[in-house]
């Protein structure tokens, strides 16, 4: 139990560091096409243990969002997106529940439930997370096309990055 908490704290530290120091500076599209950002840290919320209470999930989401906001200098934007992600995570888990059900002792990883399941689960949550994020970031209904464009471009590259991490690092919990 305490092992799980320590593991998650370490992961939180690592993800926030990577997001703030490396990915925030990454300009994949170059100077002229700034649609692609890399948003990797939500993976932390996806990988929290299955039995995390909903209210804890919401609080953790808010905390992680504020940490990221501190480095992006955008108070509330990431936090609001994280809150949405945290509140719909139980729904996504219920929708994609495998036929034999979830195993409480296993983490929500590729190793436990397979790559297709993880792709659907992480993809759904990430897409909604990014949509909320870009809506709040751009904040103008007139730029709806830009919001959708940025969401899709960022979604593809971020999800790819997450899958790379899952395949290479092979986290157990």
């Amino acid at each position: 139990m305490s092992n799980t908490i320590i593991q998650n704290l370490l992961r939180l530290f690592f993800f926030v560091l990577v997001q703030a120091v490396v990915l925030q500076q990454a300009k994949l599209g170059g100077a002229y096409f700034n649609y692609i950002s890399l948003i990797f840290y939500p993976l932390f919320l996806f990988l929290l243990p299955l039995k995390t209470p909903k209210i804890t999930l919401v609080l953790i989401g808010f905390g992680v969002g504020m940490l990221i906001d501190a480095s992006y200098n955008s108070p509330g934007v990431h936090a609001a997106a994280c809150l949405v992600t945290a509140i719909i995570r139980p729904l996504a888990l219920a929708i994609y529940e495998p036929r034999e059900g979830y195993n409480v002792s296993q983490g929500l990883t590729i190793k436990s439930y397979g790559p297709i399941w993880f792709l659907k689960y992480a993809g759904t949550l990430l897409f909604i997370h990014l949509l909320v994020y870009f809506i709040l970031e751009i904040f103008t209904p007139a730029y709806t096309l830009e919001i959708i464009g940025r969401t899709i471009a960022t979604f593809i590259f971020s999800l790819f990055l997450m899958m790379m991490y899952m395949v290479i690092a092979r986290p157990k919990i």
Partner: protein
Amino acid sequence: MRNLVLLFLRFGHFILFVLLELLCLYLIVNYNRTQREIWGNSSNIFMGYSSEKFNDWTNYFSLRDKMDDLAAENALLKEKLINAGLTPVPERDSTSALNAQYKLITAEVTNNSTDRPNNHIILNKGRRDGVQKDMGVIGDNGVIGIIIRVKENYSVVNSLLHRRSFISAMIKRTGAFGPLRWIGSNPRYVNLADIPKHHTVEVGDSIVTSSYSTHFPKGILIGVVEETNLPSGSNFHDIKVLLSNDFSALDYVEIIENLKQSEQLELEREVSDE
């Protein structure tokens, strides 16, 4: 109390989510420069728009008060006119003035046609409103026709675009008169017949109602001369008149009540009986 705790245990995460989400929105709007500007501008626009709409509404409700004010002011002005030794201008519908001969009744067109050989117009005023057979009808730009049938609430007008409608018209410049006839094809044109050839007719002459008609006051516009020619061997001009009213787009018209029509008709009858 216990229920409240249960409720919070059940939906606590959602309540917390909503509260934190509101906190986030507050932070976004207050501590991010771009979003703050967008928010500020949008709320200005929204507030401006809604207060404008609200003003429209309240203005509408205060119309009656304004009307009363205006009427009171009118009365005051008239009083001043009388006291200054000037008589106020008689009102348009007033019958109180001794020599007022014509009274107008406003009516709405409920049915209309221009594409048949004989066109009728239905008006939403009838006997109840004082409409009678043989009254004249005018629109914004001149003559429309003559009432031929009256029911309790509606009346039927023989429009100028009717083969049996004969309205006595004259050329304003020369005073030569003759009956108007519709040939029955183009709703923009009628023909003026029986103008003797010693009168000159020019394109652009105004055609108005003559004083011989008991339906209309003298000098109400009908149209202007569009084309004229004198067929060889004929004693009369052949005149094509462009109507000033667009008969296909009528909405409100006025019915003319000639208060002295019966007197005039009576005299005419007496003379013809002798």
